[in-house]
């Protein structure tokens, strides 16, 4: 418990004392245009990335859950690959794939389509972030898919339900706890991301964590850094609560539909 309290406590204290009690950090955040904008950015990037991650991760999790244990183990190797490669090397690899002379654009160009800018903008940030996050959403979803009673899907199938309907009305609703857990893991992590944005983002892609990093390590203004961190913490806490609501709301929606 102490090791949980310690960092939090020291962050809170740093945000309020410098070395005497001050609210400068917070007042700066509230007044500053920059913070509001970056906050908005952060939310936008995080939510988009988490959402896209779920969209990308769910089919993979679904596919994995339908495999025999042996094949699943084999496929999991593929899924875990992104973990083993450092983000800088990965950013290089992304450049080879998605860059203006990259594989994708070369293919597009050769079939007469215009090249598209996939890196060094919001798209790049999302791609990089999603790539890192997919394994995180995959496991919770897969776990909840594997835990489902197969008789339920079978019963629905006998009643004549198509695969799509079984998926939408049974498999998906029953896997929502896993989706929520995965989404939470993904979302919460993006709040702390900064290397990805710095490497693959464009001019406007600044996140709170970039700022905190800057203040902590280069400007040494720990008071301000902590104030930003506390704000971020409060924010993500709020989002989690809101998400909890939505989840309740979602099952209510399922009943009504």
């Amino acid at each position, binding site marked *: 418990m102490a090791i949980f309290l310690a960092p939090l406590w020291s962050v809170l204290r740093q945000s309020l004392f410098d070395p005497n009690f001050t609210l400068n950090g917070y007042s700066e955040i509230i007044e500053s245009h920059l913070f509001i904008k970056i906050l908005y950015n952060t939310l936008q990037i995080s939510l988009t990335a988490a959402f896209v991650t779920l969209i990308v991760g769910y089919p993979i999790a679904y596919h994995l859950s339908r495999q025999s244990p042996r094949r699943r183990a084999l496929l999991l190797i593929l899924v875990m690959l992104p973990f083993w*490669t450092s983000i800088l090397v990965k950013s290089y690899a992304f450049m080879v794939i998605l860059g203006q002379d990259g594989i994708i654009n070369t293919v597009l160009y050769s079939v007469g389509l215009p090249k598209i800018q996939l890196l060094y903008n919001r798209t790049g940030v999302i791609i990089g972030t999603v790539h890192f996050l997919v394994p995180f959403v995959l496991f*919770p979803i897969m776990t909840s898919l594997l835990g489902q009673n197969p008789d339920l899907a079978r019963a629905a199938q006998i009643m004549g339900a198509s695969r799509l309907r079984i998926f939408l009305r049974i498999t998906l609703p029953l896997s929502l706890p896993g989706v929520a857990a995965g989404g939470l893991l993904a979302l919460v992590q993006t709040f702390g991301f900064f290397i990805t944005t710095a490497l693959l983002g464009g001019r406007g892609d600044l996140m*709170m964590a970039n700022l905190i990093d800057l203040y902590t390590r280069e400007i040494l203004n720990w008071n301000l850094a902590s104030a930003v961190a506390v704000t971020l913490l409060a924010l993500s806490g709020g989002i989690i609560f809101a998400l909890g609501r939505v989840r309740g709301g979602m099952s209510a929606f399922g009943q009504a539909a």
Partner: protein
Amino acid sequence: MGYVFLILPTLIVVPLSFNAGTELSFPPTSFSLAQYRTYFFESNWWEATVLSFWVGIATMMLSLVLGVPAAYALVRADFPGKKILTLFLLSPILVPVIVVALGVYLYFASIGIKGVALPIVLGHTLIAMPFVVITAMAGMQNVDRNLEVASQIMGAGRLLIFYKVTLPLLRPAIVAGALFSFLISFDEVVIAYFVGRAGFSTLPVKMFGSIQWEISPVIAAISTLLTLLSLGVCLLVAATAKDE
């Protein structure tokens, strides 16, 4: 599709690792094992890897030992402030890791925890445990309450039920949590760097050091080796997994 997205960057990285010289370049201009030689024989890469492994494994153990019972309590028990406590347990991953690292560092310095690996393990556990908690909590949704009650009626105490009934049923979630906590530790730079001591760097810290100025292709070699390693482990698991 999804799989392609996940593996494509790795497919690029592997050839990068066989390039000679100290710059990345694709497609590779030469073939050599120079990067691997560097990794195995120069500037403590190997020691850093070993340290990272031990830290990763210790973090995994500790996160599981603390995180799984915590998740169990959070799902099964009913007490006021449950949500707040959940949030509190999750807080280390809600705060950018640099802030956590600072807090941990100052705290350990103040209570005088010494040693090479212990502070890193504690710091990593802090950020890895929330993952274990979340995955285990999601897994608990699939554990039939009735089974626990049935065991209780047969006379099993809470602890025994937890070990003999809940844990085995939670196994997939725990495996995922274990994997996460290991990987998070194995991948983590900032905390390992802050609370680590001079001369004892974990692999990511060492890699981070070597990419400030240039992206050394050694890193591509390391990525390739780790990929191969995980491949080996998973093949082993796959070979032993029962086909049901």
